[in-house]
């Protein structure tokens, strides 16, 4: 049987799991009752795992955020919406597959959803460009947000990207302008915007769809100015120092709560979101609805003013 524990740091759990399997085999082969031993080992694994996942290092959380089986934007949309009408294209150049967006209904609430979309497996990942948007992705998101504002529908944005795509065409078509425009428009869009980080939140590429009234983060995610590897190769001149860079930049949800960037951390099932997509989707749905109910009560002018002052306060300086 393939192990549930595939990340290198999950080895202690994998070993316990193997021991349980071996005991089960022995019991079967020799026809003896070892259910007590097995039960003991299983409860030990459960307890060890619970402790283990609560005490992950920052770098381990980064790896969890990148787990190839983790639910992606469309996995959540499929589980939380009762109506979903996907829309395509930025009306200028193309339809960026690394960004999805459309009209949705969640628990009777009509919302516009935008999100960065990774692929599963090589082919799907190439199709989704590994979740790295090009300018047309940001502009598709912008088009949908403007539509949301015109019809007074809240916006929910799922963040999950290793960064904006660094390519010739992306630069030619104004990657920087596309991101900047979104920051400007999102900062004063007169409808509620909820940002939810479900995986990776790397740099301006994430922020380009990540300005809003609330920033929520799943437990095993990260968000920063650059990836730990990028920071390591520039500031440490050694890409293998990513673990140190993750610590130095303080990239986890808990860190971002302390910096005042993140508003709320959403718990994941033991072992991470990929162990139980339905449970994590249910959590996401209920907290999104709770947050939305709060924001919907605020008149648009006050909502925008509060949003701007939220960003006004961020940062630390002396004078």
């Amino acid at each position, binding site marked *: 049987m393939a192990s549930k524990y595939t990340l290198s740091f999950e080895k202690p759990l994998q070993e316990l799991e193997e021991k349980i399997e071996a005991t089960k085999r022995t019991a079967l082969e020799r026809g003896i009752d070892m259910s007590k031993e097995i039960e003991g080992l299983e409860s030990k694994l459960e307890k060890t795992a619970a402790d283990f996942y609560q005490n992950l290092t920052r770098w381990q959380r980064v790896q969890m955020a990148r787990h190839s089986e983790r639910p992606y934007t469309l996995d959540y949309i499929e589980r939380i919406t009762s109506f979903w009408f996907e829309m395509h294209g930025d009306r200028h150049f193309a339809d960026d597959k690394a960004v999805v967006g459309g009209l949705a209904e969640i628990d009777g609430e009509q919302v516009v959803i935008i999100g960065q979309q990774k692929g599963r497996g090589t082919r799907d990942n190439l199709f989704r460009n590994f979740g790295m948007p090009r300018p047309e992705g940001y502009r598709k998101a912008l088009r949908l947000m403007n539509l949301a504002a015109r019809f007074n529908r809240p916006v929910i944005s799922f963040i999950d990207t290793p*960064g*904006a*795509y*660094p*390519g*010739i065409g*992306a*630069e*030619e*078509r*104004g*990657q*920087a*302008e596309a*991101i*900047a*425009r979104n*920051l*400007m*428009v999102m*900062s*004063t869009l007169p409808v509620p915007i909820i940002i939810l980080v479900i995986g990776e939140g790397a*740099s*301006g590429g994430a*922020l*380009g769809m990540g*300005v809003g009234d609330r920033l929520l983060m799943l437990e095993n995610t990260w*968000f*920063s*100015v*650059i990836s730990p590897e*990028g*920071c390591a190769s*520039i*500031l*440490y*001149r050694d890409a293998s*120092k990513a673990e*140190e*860079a993750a610590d*130095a*930049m*303080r*990239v986890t949800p808990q*860190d*971002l709560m302390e*910096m005042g*960037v993140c508003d709320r951390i959403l718990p994941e099932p033991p072992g991470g979101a990929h162990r139980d997509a339905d449970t994590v989707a249910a959590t996401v749905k209920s907290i999104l609805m709770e947050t939305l109910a709060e924001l919907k009560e605020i008149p648009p002018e006050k909502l925008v003013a509060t*949003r*701007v002052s939220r*960003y*006004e306060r*961020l*940062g*630390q*300086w*002396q*004078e």
Partner: protein
Amino acid sequence: MAWFRRSAKKILSTERKSLSGDLWTKCPGCSEYIYREELERSRFVCPTCSHHFSINCRKYLEHLMDNPNGFTELDPDLSSVDPLEFEARKKYSDQLAAARKKTGLNEAVLTVTGAVEGYQVVLGIMDFSFIGGSMGSAVGEKVARAIDYAREHGLPLIIISASGGARMQEAALSLMQMAKTSAKLSQFSQSGGLYISVLTDPTTGGVTASFAMLGDIILAEPGALIGFAGARVIKQTIGEELPEGFQRAEFLREKGFVDHIVHRSDLKNILGQLIGFFGYPKKALRNEQAADSDQ
């Protein structure tokens, strides 16, 4: 995002040459040697090939202000702290101290209000020699306050950018300055303010992807490197050489992201004409004349 180590080296070496007290500076554009005094006179533009040498924020101030002493610096004491106690190969706090000592500046941006061609303006000037002109909390806050000052006083806003991007040593807090400055520009724009963005060599990463690309009018100095992703990262990702002139000011104009390439010696005049076009009154001139007659 990423800094451009390659251009950082280029800038540093140019600076080292010009600061070393040598009477002659070799132009990286045409390899001609230029007499120091002539370079000063030409505002650090090569008389032979028009290569624009990087200059610090004080030089821009001297060049653009009507009265070199007739401006007020905004938030002169606002400067960076080390919120994350960041340490990579160097401690961020040491880098800050070294940058202050080397540049005599408090931060990587200088913000002032003063007169340009008779118009009272708010002017922000970034300085690449201060930690690569990177934007941390203090740069973001100074830019945000300058935008607010312009909005509250009904003044046009000019920002001259020179930056490697967001300051990694402040991690997510730096990233949030992109949102902060863009939010302030949105308010400024909605209030009817005019914002002219001037891109100089280099303007990259998070600064390009926020206030630098949000000008009502975007000007660039000839040959300036302007982009989001670093050339090295792009090359690594696509595994090809980059086309000639990629991410240069002229390339951006061709692609539709820059209104005009402006020679440094024309910049002041053009700024004045643009501000005049949008109907701002020449109130500064009156104030200055009043001040002159007092003497």
